[in-house]
């Protein structure tokens, strides 16, 4: 399992230096995620879920420990290399959608491609196909402000797929949505998972846990429980 893992972290520690005190947010975490999994990370607020996800997403660096993403050691990469990792291998979905207001739906989907040097004219088809995939074919020219929350999150999802990443990281993607809209978004994630995408999602809801192939429970910077669906089904049976 370890060798084929898409994500492998070993003895990962994250400590914030707050001047007088050292705040350790992640304590010696080790975790492997195999391709095609749908991992739900759960835990109380402040337990370090977002911090972990940011490190997995190459947005943040661990204080110590090793992180290997898709066979590459990310731990001591420079800023530009990390940007490339994010731009080429990772798709982000945020709780606040984080679309760029002055850009249209298609243009928003295109942003990750733009940073890989592709002009919109070169990959408009791809962007429109992605919009179609999340059910927004008729909103291509709309601005984010003209869309509902659910629609915005769909755009964000399409955008996360633009560079055909090895995994999608989502930090409470349904946190700002009502339950039925949230469910539609989760359906989309399930669909992607069914198509073989690796998904790591931070969540509070049990509904996600039900869809996930694996649930990682965190508490105070540690993994306190790590259950795969197979184990769960066995336990439930």
């Amino acid at each position: 399992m370890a060798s084929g893992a898409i994500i492998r972290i070993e003895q990962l520690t994250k400590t914030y230096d707050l001047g007088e005190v050292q705040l350790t947010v992640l304590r010696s975490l080790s975790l492997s995620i195999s391709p095609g999994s749908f991992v739900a990370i759960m835990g109380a607020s402040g337990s370090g879920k977002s911090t972990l996800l940011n490190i997995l997403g190459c947005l943040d660096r661990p204080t110590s420990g090793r992180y290997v993403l898709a066979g590459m050691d990310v731990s001591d990469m420079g800023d530009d290399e990390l940007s490339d990792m994010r731009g080429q291998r990772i798709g982000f979905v945020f709780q606040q959608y984080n679309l760029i207001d002055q850009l249209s739906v298609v243009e928003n989907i295109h942003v990750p491609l733009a940073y890989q040097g592709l002009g919109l004219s070169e990959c408009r088809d791809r962007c429109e196909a992605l919009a179609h995939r999340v059910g927004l074919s008729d909103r291509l020219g709309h601005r984010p402000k003209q869309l509902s929350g659910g629609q915005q999150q769909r755009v964000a999802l399409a955008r996360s797929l633009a560079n055909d990443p090895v995994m999608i990281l989502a930090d409470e993607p349904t946190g700002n949505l009502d339950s039925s809209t949230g469910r539609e978004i989760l359906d989309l994630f399930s669909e992607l998972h069914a198509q073989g995408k690796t998904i790591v999602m931070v969540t509070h809801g049990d509904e996600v846990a039900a869809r996930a192939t694996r649930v990682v429970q965190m508490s105070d910077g540690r993994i306190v429980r790590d259950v795969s669906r197979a184990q769960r089904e066995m336990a439930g049976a």
Partner: protein
Amino acid sequence: MNLPMLLRGARAGVASLLLHKTRSLLTMLGIIFGVCSVIAMLAIGEGASFEAQERIRQKGARNIILRSKKPAGDATAGGAKRSYIADYGLKYADMERIRRSVPGIVRILPQRIEPKRVRFPKHAECEVVGTPPLYREMTSTEMVEGRFLTDWDEREQKNVCVLTEDLARTLYGHVSPLGEEIRVANRAFTVVGVMRELSRVYHTAAGGGAPASEGRVFVSLHTFRTHLGEQNVRRSAGSFQVERVQLSFLTIEFASENDVARAAPLIRHALADLHKKQDFVVEVPLDELRALEATKRLFSFVLGSIAAISLLVGGIGIMNLMLATVTERTREIGVRRALGAKKRQIVEQFLMETGVLSVAGGLIGVVVGVFFPYFLSWAIHAISGHAYRVVVTPWSVLLALGISVATGIAFGVYPARRAANLDPIEALRYS
């Protein structure tokens, strides 16, 4: 960065600026005014010296001009009225001496100029110019009809003359004066030509209440000498004075400007023992031109610097706008970083916006700035009646545009770097 990427970036920059149209426009105004004032200031500086430069240039950059001057001590200023003879100025002998002792001379044009009165067919004040035929080659003149003086006129001391167009008009109206006889100072001359002087750079020192000249009569120098004489008698109540002057001007043309630079002291030296009194002056148009150019450079530099300060203020305006923009768009920057933007690409994005702002401001500034000086000149003329000349030179436009773009970019660097160096996580969390 290649061209399509640049264009893409510029389009994105325009789109971002259009988000805050008023704010962007106001910021651009700073650059517009800056560019405009740089061009205007330089145009004023250029215009201020333009006419003086032209005048000097007409004297010829390869020429040195010697002018007879009444020595200060001989002036009639002495309270007691008495009569005397003043013998001063350049002599024929001087001309020969200069020709022998100063290297690089191509030719020398001697002139004798004296105000006289035309008595027939009408009374008119004029200047009689005694000159060899060379005059026409060495100055910018144009024959209207007839011919100019010839070597033969000179050798034979012919009583022929050439009139300037204005004088011909005064004396004969629209009838051709060719073949007519005019009478100047009790001498008759036959008119053989009418000419137009395109620029007149030699004048007699028309002081002492001499009446304004209505034109000029050209006769050969030799004729002047024998028929009009070298003595000029000026009478005033109870006294008279006689001035004896051989030549009014010597225009010495050199082969090159280098020869001119060396010649002035040599000329002074050559004439030193013949002219104990200061009875001539040496004009070196080249020196005047250089001095004027130096002054102009300084003038333009000072004016330009003042204007550049307003560009600087424009630049600070840009920086102010961009800093506000960076703060406002912190989260966007975080998002872009998360989606794969490198620091360099963030810098480029923001620099592109300042670039668009300053180039657009610069171009508008140039368009306004090219017309503004002429408007200013017109307004000054309309209000005060003074003709105020301005000259917009291409280099001033390029300079202004260059400075504006440079300012925009320079002041854009700090905000852009600030944006790029934001911590992506902090930026994403910003609300």
